[in-house]
């Protein structure tokens, strides 16, 4: 659906050049939810704007649905944009229009007749769960409701691709989840391709099939979400992963144990897929004569399946502990020794 080939986007004058996007190549399949994660300034905003021609690449090719966006202009580009719509971090609704009229705006642009417009708006309002609020103005809505209007507006012209520019970054955690559920539902029901950019690993974990990690304009890591979660390679990816696997409270607890406990080993186990449902821990305790102390554990769901981490303190004879760790490896549970006491 989307093919980026050796994209470079440069800003500034000849003397003072900044490469916002530096030689990025990637593909997004039809029906996929593709996430791009990075800190601010990593180039992800520029990258997503290349997909609907709001930014044009300095070099390289951007293909969306077979159309070379990077060499399309004028009317053809405007038509293409109706099929590649965008949802924004700050919603960008027109305050002078009601919910209904905001959603109708892209239909007006596309030249849809009034009676048809009204029908379509009613459908969209129901789809995003805003029934009863059609005549409200944006100023009367909560953040989550505003984003629902933004999404309905983006869906108005039956797009093939939905671009989400930090769509949940201005929302509280609960509202974020409800918007993410809405996006997943839309993806499943309409078969829409979604490209989203974010700085929250939680968003990637919850809805993305594949992820690209960006740093300084480059994609430093890319792959299936579960694979990246299981074995992150780049340092920045590990930092992002810590957002979802190691809450601050757990970090403190681990540090406390490292400082105060004289014996045993601290190990971190990563379970993926059906591994999470098997009683590996119970069999370790049964098979080996060691004590197991659970320091921290969590499990979360990704689009591709469950993903869990468990931090254990193994106390016993050194040899026994080593054997237990070997056994865990044999069971295909990724095991990492954090600290030797």
């Amino acid at each position, binding site marked *: 659906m989307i093919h980026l080939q050796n994209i470079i986007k440069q800003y500034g004058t000849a003397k003072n050049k900044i490469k916002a996007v530096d030689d990025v190549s990637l593909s997004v399949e039809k029906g996929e939810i593709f996430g791009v994660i990075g800190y601010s300034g990593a180039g992800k905003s520029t990258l997503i704007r290349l997909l609907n021609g*709001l930014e044009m690449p300095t070099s390289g090719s951007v293909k969306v649905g077979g159309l070379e966006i990077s060499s399309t202009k004028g009317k053809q*580009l*405007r038509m293409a944009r109706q099929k590649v*719509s965008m949802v924004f971090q*700050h919603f*960008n609704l027109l305050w002078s229009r009601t919910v209904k009229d905001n959603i109708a705006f892209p239909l007006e*642009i596309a030249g849809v007749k009034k009676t048809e417009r009204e029908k379509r708006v009613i459908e969209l309002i129901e789809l995003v769960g805003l029934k009863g609020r059609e005549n409200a103005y944006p*100023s009367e809505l909560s953040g989550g409701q505003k984003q629902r209007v933004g999404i309905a507006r983006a869906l108005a012209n039956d797009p093939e691709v939905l671009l989400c520019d930090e769509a949940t970054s201005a929302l509280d955690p609960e509202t974020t989840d409800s918007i993410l559920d809405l996006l997943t539902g839309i993806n499943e029901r309409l078969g829409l391709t979604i490209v989203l950019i974010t700085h929250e690993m939680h968003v990637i974990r919850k809805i993305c099939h594949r992820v690209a990690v960006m740093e300084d304009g480059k994609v430093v890591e890319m792959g299936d979400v579960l694979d990246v979660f299981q074995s992150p390679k780049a340092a920045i990816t590990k930092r992002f992963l810590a957002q979802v696997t190691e809450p601050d409270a757990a970090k403190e607890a681990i540090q406390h144990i490292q400082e105060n406990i004289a014996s045993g080993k601290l190990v971190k186990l990563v379970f993926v897929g059906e591994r999470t449902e098997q009683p590996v821990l119970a069999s370790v305790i049964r098979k080996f004569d060691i004590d197991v102390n659970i320091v921290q554990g969590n499990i979360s769901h990704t689009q591709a399946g469950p993903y869990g981490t468990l931090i254990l303190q193994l106390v016993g004879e050194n040899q026994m502990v080593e054997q237990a760790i070997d056994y865990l490896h044999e069971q295909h549970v990724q095991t990492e020794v954090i600290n030797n006491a």
Partner: protein
Amino acid sequence: MRDEFLQNVDWDKMWQATRETLYMTAMSTVFTFVIGLALGILLFLSSPGQIWANRFINMIVGALVNIFRSIPFIILIILLIPFTKLLLGTIRGPEAALPALIIGAAPFYARMVLIALQEIDKGVIEAAKSMGAKTSTIIFKVLLPESMPALISGITVTAIALVGYTAMAGVIGAGGLGTLAFLDGFQRSREDVVWVATILILIIVFILQFIGDFLVSKLDKR
């Protein structure tokens, strides 16, 4: 009492002058609104980073606006006498005041339009672009509606300034309440005429401000 106090006031003349002032204010406000809006939009869209970003056009329009905004109105009227004569064939009467009023006020309003448009959230314009909107759609369906309260309060301020300008236009014999107060009142030492004309001008200004404030509160849904 009443008759004695206002003995010098010729009510027919006063009414005639009020109508002239209203006529000059209304006509010049309408033209100022249209021309100022066009100039303001041109200034905005030609500024760097906007749809028609063009340093040359931006500089020329910006310079014209600044020059005409800076010339004191009383001098502008005199400078424009040949132009008015060419345009209307006369320099007397309320119509003759209109070119000077409009040329004096439109650049002033254009600046206000520019400020109003700069207040619009850039994201909203980007959103419209991302939906595939044409420039004309962006102007008429995004820029104007989104800045309407500021555009209305701007034209209210301008219209009130224009009431003051009409009084000055008396120097070229434009008529209206200002001329009446000056010629019939001040120069003939008839204080009551000056007072009545002043009160009528105040009433006009208050009504204009009231209409402006009312429209702004109706339109502003933020």
